[in-house]
């Protein structure tokens, strides 16, 4: 006779929640990673410190949270041409709620070409590359072996950028880094050396991904934690673009005539009867 399957793993967890993060003990306290939220956190830490605590399990120094907050500002352009922001604007055109629009635009950032998810690859690149560099590999060899080339230019995560060459956010974040008292660490130093080589040879520069990946690697943060920290990276810009269209006449955002869509499909044909 066949033995009964062992379901003890699930039986032990039925009707119970086991949290490694914290929770609300009614009438006692709200615990958050070992802190009492009302006593130790409210009024004591910034929202971004709490955000990073909830994302990583570690309460960062205020200066680091302030730097991350500055990076968030750098991803909050209220420009509805940007893909995720345009979803916010179109949601406003459809008359959604602010929360729905902001969530929809933020979801769009879960992309392989822009947004927080690309930081996983960016961090992977700079952390792996630093090990190779410290083992003696030259910057020129790092660039030449880092991936594919397109139109004669190396395609390296964290370098170059669509639409523009160069990144205005780097200068702003560098200024913030200095003001907050952070030195340039090994990862950021190498990232700038790679940029110098790319600029001199290919006229390409570091982008926000490359800069954030290197700076936060110097702060000993792991790739997955960096992704988690930036999970709502674009939300504010999306909200701005939503509000811009929600407050205007419905349908007034980027209206399209039928012939604004180029049809390239099959010519008109008869629907066959179902056999």
């Amino acid at each position, binding site marked *: 006779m066949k033995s009964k*399957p*062992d*379901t003890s*793993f*699930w039986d032990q967890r039925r*009707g*119970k*929640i*086991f*949290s*490694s993060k*914290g*929770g609300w*003990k*009614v009438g006692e306290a709200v*615990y958050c990673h*070992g802190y009492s939220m009302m006593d130790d956190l409210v009024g004591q830490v910034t929202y971004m410190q709490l955000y990073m605590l909830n994302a990583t399990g570690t309460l960062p120094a205020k200066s680091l949270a302030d730097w991350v907050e500055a990076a968030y500002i750098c991803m909050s352009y209220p420009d509805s041409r940007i893909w995720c922001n345009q979803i916010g604007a179109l949601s406003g055109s459809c008359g959604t*709620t602010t929360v*729905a629009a902001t969530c929809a635009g933020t*979801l769009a950032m879960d992309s392989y070409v822009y947004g927080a998810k690309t930081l996983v690859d960016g961090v992977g690149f700079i952390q792996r590359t630093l090990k190779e560099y410290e083992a003696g590999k030259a910057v020129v060899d790092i660039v030449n072996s880092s991936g594919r080339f397109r139109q004669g230019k190396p395609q390296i995560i964290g370098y170059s950028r*669509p*639409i*523009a*060459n*160069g*990144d*205005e956010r*780097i*200068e702003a974040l*560098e200024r913030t880094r200095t003001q907050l008292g952070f030195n*340039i660490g090994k990862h950021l*130093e190498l990232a*700038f*050396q790679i*940029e*110098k080589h790319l*600029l001199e040879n290919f006229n390409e*520069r*570091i982008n926000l991904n490359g800069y954030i990946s290197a700076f936060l690697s110097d702060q000993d943060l792991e790739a997955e934690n960096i992704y988690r920290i930036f999970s709502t990276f674009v939300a504010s810009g999306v909200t701005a673009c939503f509000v811009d269209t929600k407050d205007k006449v419905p349908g007034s955002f980027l*209206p*399209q*005539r*039928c*012939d*604004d*869509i*180029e*049809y*390239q*499909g*099959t*010519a*008109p*044909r*008869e*629907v*066959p*009867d*179902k*056999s």
Partner: protein
Amino acid sequence: MTKAQSKITRRNDVFSGRVATRIWQEQPAEDNPYAVEHSRCHGYELLDLVKKRSFVDVLFLLFRGELPTSDESELLEALMVAFINPGPRHPATRSAMNAGIGKTDPALILPIALTAMSGKNNAAGAVEETMRFLRKQQRRQVSDVAMELIENEVRPPEGDWIIALGFGSYYNSIDVQTNKMANHLVSLPAAGKALRWGQEFAEMIASYDLGWLPVGVVAAVLTDLGFQPRAAAGIYQIISAPGLLAHGIELANKPLTDMPFLADEDYFIEE
């Protein structure tokens, strides 16, 4: 310090002047270029499709560009009924229920549930990779793949064993209902190589209490029907949407107390 001087220049990339589509044609009214007189899907007048074809046929047409044969239509419809509801215990359904009982805007219940359904654990987010697994492995002998996996993969100490994408245990047993569905689907005339390969694979691993999982069956049918792997997660979300929404709406008119809220003694904060 070796930081380069910041200088921002426009790349002047050439972007398309307008969006192109091979799917849908909107023919404007004579007196208004914004108003639609006729819509065609891959060349078929929408009103004619309304009169002559089923929802499943037009769904197939949208993604494949041609209407399905009656056998293909039968297989897709059977799949859609088989997996119309992930069931009230599935995390995506429970997300819908939480939204419903919490009086979330009803228009947002489905997007909330479908977002949960986008995950990779027993959910739509795993179908694309599973289709790629089936496309690749179906060129090999089932017995070779099964032996290789059983010998090399390690059963995890806790939780279910997903021995291959789309195949594994379900609460340490074979997922009986899903395997019944697969048995039926593989018997239909439009069942192809992926379904048959998967069925043979499921039979081969059954002695280890492993078998088809829903993701595997959905992936196999979509492979046999010629859907693109990249569309697969969304198709599975469409298939499961009715069940997710129904469960969310069922609770939307009920008081908060109609769902459990665990007592403090059942909520454990681990050190």
